[in-house]
């Protein structure tokens, strides 16, 4: 009886020390949309799941979804910090200032802010050079469009989105200098119905290709129904547009997230800025479908050139919308200008919301 009791006590003790040794790193995530949006937040959540899969018992993750940008964000980030998370990913541009504010109060917590440009000792920033993908789809659009006009469903006027429209247009202009783009701002990251309505409005006005910077597959679905082409966003949306989708710009956060979690565990984490594109596989293109072989070959070539660094989408000469010179012949845009981009390039008819 006594030995049994001893054994039990020893077992309990062993379990307790075992648990203490491998205390998991708690990691928190804040998402702007629901994890089921099949777009932006969905892909970040895939990254979270990838961390869990790769690091198993070493980590414990939590997330808060549909957190609006603004005062709510600060409260939510702080909540995660107070709950003992030592690494927190804030995954939307509008979380920039809230993240920095909370980071000041919790110096021993590491923060990772997506798509922003403000850093601190315990705040890193990271983003993906989505514009590389947008340049390629711009070229495809110009090749595939019969009307010479594409529709572009834009979400919210922040540099990320403006840069995307410019890159798309530069790609298109490299094929057809007179290419036109009609832009609709839905002023929301997530409203499938409104995205579908915007797609219908664009098609009714004669565009025959739709690109989007909004998160749901609604526009692709409308394109399929109306028999025109489209590009998916954030996730591969081919199921929603088997005949419509030409390709999709797919986000891939998994590798980055795993490496950052490992860095915290190893104690090698430091504040830095990571902006990866095709080269780091942070953005890649879904298979090229529904296009002739020569267009596909062109797209693949451009993708390879960007990946190797041979081609930078923002290479001069490029003029601003008003006709003034931005980049001289051969000049390449610096990352600072790209990150804060708040102007259109020449050829875009839309007026940029300020």
């Amino acid at each position, binding site marked *: 009886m006594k030995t049994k009791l001893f054994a039990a006590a020893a077992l309990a003790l062993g379990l307790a020390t075992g648990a203490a040794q491998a205390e998991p790193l708690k990691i928190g995530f804040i998402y702007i949309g629901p994890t089921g949006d099949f777009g932006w937040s969905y892909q970040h959540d895939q990254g979270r799941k990838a961390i869990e899969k790769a690091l198993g018992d070493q980590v414990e993750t939590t997330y808060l979804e549909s957190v609006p940008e603004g005062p709510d964000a600060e409260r939510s980030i702080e909540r995660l910090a107070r709950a003992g998370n030592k690494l927190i990913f804030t995954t939307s541009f509008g979380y920039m200032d809230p993240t920095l504010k909370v980071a000041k109060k919790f110096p021993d917590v590491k923060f990772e802010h997506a798509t922003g440009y403000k850093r601190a000792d315990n705040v890193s920033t990271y983003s993906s050079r989505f514009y590389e993908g947008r340049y390629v789809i711009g070229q495809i659009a110009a090749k595939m469009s019969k009307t010479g006009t594409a529709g572009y469903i834009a979400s919210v006027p922040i540099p990320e989105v403006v840069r995307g429209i410019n890159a798309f247009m530069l790609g298109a202009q490299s094929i057809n200098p007179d290419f036109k783009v009609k832009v*609709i701002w839905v002023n929301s990251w997530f409203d499938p119905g409104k995205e579908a309505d915007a797609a219908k409005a664009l098609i009714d006005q004669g565009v025959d290709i739709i690109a989007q910077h909004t998160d749901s597959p609604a526009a692709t679905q409308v394109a399929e129904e109306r028999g025109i082409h489209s590009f998916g966003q954030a996730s591969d949306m081919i199921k929603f547009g088997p005949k419509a989708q030409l390709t999709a710009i797919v986000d891939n956060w998994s590798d980055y997230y795993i490496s950052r979690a490992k860095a915290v565990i190893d104690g090698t984490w430091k504040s830095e800025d990571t902006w990866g594109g095709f080269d780091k596989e942070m953005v890649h293109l879904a298979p090229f479908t529904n296009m002739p072989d020569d267009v596909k070959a062109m797209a693949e070539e451009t993708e390879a050139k960007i990946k190797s660094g041979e081609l930078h989408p923002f290479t001069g000469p490029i003029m601003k919308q008003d006709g003034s010179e931005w980049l001289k012949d051969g000049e390449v845009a610096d990352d600072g200008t790209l990150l804060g981009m708040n102007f259109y390039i020449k050829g875009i008819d839309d007026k940029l919301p300020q």
Partner: protein
Amino acid sequence: MTMFEAILLTVITASTPLLLAAIGELVVERSGVLNLGVEGMMVMGAVMGFAGAQWTGNPYAGIVCAVLAGMFMALIFAFVTQTLVANQVASGLALTLLGLGLSGMLGEAFVGQPGIKLPALDIPGISDIPFIGPVFFGQDLLVYLSFALVVAVTWFLFVSRTGLKLRAIGDNHVSAHALGIPVVRYRYLAILFGGACSGLAGAYLSLAYTPQWVENMTAGRGWIALALVVFGSWRPWRVVVGAYLFGAVWISQLHLQALGSGIPSQFLSSLPYIATIVVLVLISSNRRLSLINTPAALGKPFVPER
């Protein structure tokens, strides 16, 4: 098809979910109950409508599931507010939160799955009439149902005897009770009807508007429907005007943007809200009449004396 017809078609699509949810809520509020859970019931209708269609392969089965889901949510609300006499505002908000959370959980498996679109039902003869035919009679079942519901609700509230009793309860539940009208039973039924309509609105989103399931896909439409009821001063036809006006401005502003009007898009995006409020306030501006329309017992708890 001309541009005008094309625009009109999208306007109907944008307005129908608002109209369906609003006409249900109108009946609920006419009975003196304020259910702020429209968004939650709607989103549950959307997820269960999608689920039902996926399981059976039949979008009409999806509609039935959506109605049942909306009514199930409404039943919770009815039990809490009518049987337990809890605060209606708090219970309605809780219902919305519950619906948004629960639907996200139930719908997890459906994310990334294309749905089944509700087919358009042509009415032989009428659908061939130029202009009116293709626009108004080349629609799906839920659009026709939304028109039918408006007519039915108007008749019920202002012609039928039962409707008169329902309005009496909404104005003064104590007097109605004294007259022997079963207040709680009427309200239960009204709340369930509201739930069914919200469920239909949800089904319209996930089966017709954008045949897919994504979390929070209602994106605030339940709240717009609630506002339409109030600004439409609890009159069915004003709610129709409100819903269609909202839809029309909503779609027109997108077209204006695509045309490159140069008007700031933030202003255009807020235009549907501004226009609808202004117009409905103007048509309801007769103070005496609007007081008559407002259900006097709206939101007040009722405990029958025994």
